[in-house]
């Protein structure tokens, strides 16, 4: 690679060690999720814990594997807040309705 090319390609971020560590944490969180499946939890509690853990995994993937942590702050602000807002809007009817129905079930 010429010196000129090297000057353009300064974008390299993260080391093999860092990526391996992220990979390990993702595996560990997956292991915890599988372990939780053995416990007999109430479906709504189970769903909350699983989605919480998955959000942590998603954040790890987006930050490190997709390099968003190393990008310009402007890109993060363009992409993430609006997406999170839209997903929250989808949940407006979710909690009152789905949880009411599950508690109405015959025990």
């Amino acid at each position, binding site marked *: 690679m010429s010196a000129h090319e090297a000057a353009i*390609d300064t*974008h390299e971020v993260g080391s093999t060690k860092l990526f391996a560590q992220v990979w390990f944490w993702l595996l560990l969180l*997956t292991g915890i999720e599988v372990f939780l499946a053995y416990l007999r939890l109430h479906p709504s509690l189970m769903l909350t814990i*699983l989605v919480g853990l998955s959000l942590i*995994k998603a954040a790890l993937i987006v930050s490190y594997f997709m390099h968003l942590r190393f990008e*310009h702050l402007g890109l993060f602000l363009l992409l993430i807040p609006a997406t999170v807002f839209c997903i929250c809007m989808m949940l407006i009817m979710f909690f009152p309705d789905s949880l009411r129905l*599950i508690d109405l079930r015959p025990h």
Partner: protein
Amino acid sequence: MSHTETEGILTTPWSGGASPFAVNSKKLGMWLFLVSDSLTFSAVLVAYAYVRLSNPDWPRPFEIWPAIAKSTLMTLILLSSSLTMVLGVAAAHRGDRKKTVRYLMWTMIFGAAFVVIHATEWYTLITQEHVTPWSNPWGAPLFGGTFFGLTGLHMLHVTIGVAYLAVIAWGFGNGRFKSEDVEVSGLYWHFVDLVWMFIFPLVYLMSVNLKG
């Protein structure tokens, strides 16, 4: 306005002098596509979670062995494919074409393994358990529709991803594509991995059959 003033404005990010997001257009395009795709998957997942919670007789057909073991293995495969992908992107930025292609090949092998294992699972569900999108032997008929819809949409993404990586590996190997093309394909691949991180717990772990 003096000449130096004009120059000063043109070099600020929001005046057209430089990219405000400090990324190239391909990368920005891929990110915007992934935002719209994440809303598609979110809508399907929220709809699934809703019917899952509100149906008292939702089927729990996935026994620890083989269904959960298999889907856990699939998760491991997909996570490992993300690791080889990110190492491939790093190799591409270093300008190491041979290593990049090798990492991309591993990513494609993992992706193909994922699709094959998933397909065998579909085959078992359809031929032996007689699950269709509108009926199943266990309970709420919606189970089949949500399961095949969600996992099918994801499997389609993985399949397209493997083909996309094949094109990128071929083009980067012969010098046609640049390292930024590898990075953009990596964004897509990691997103497919990310979506599975929600499908696996919500579809499989929420429907574990502990009696088996």
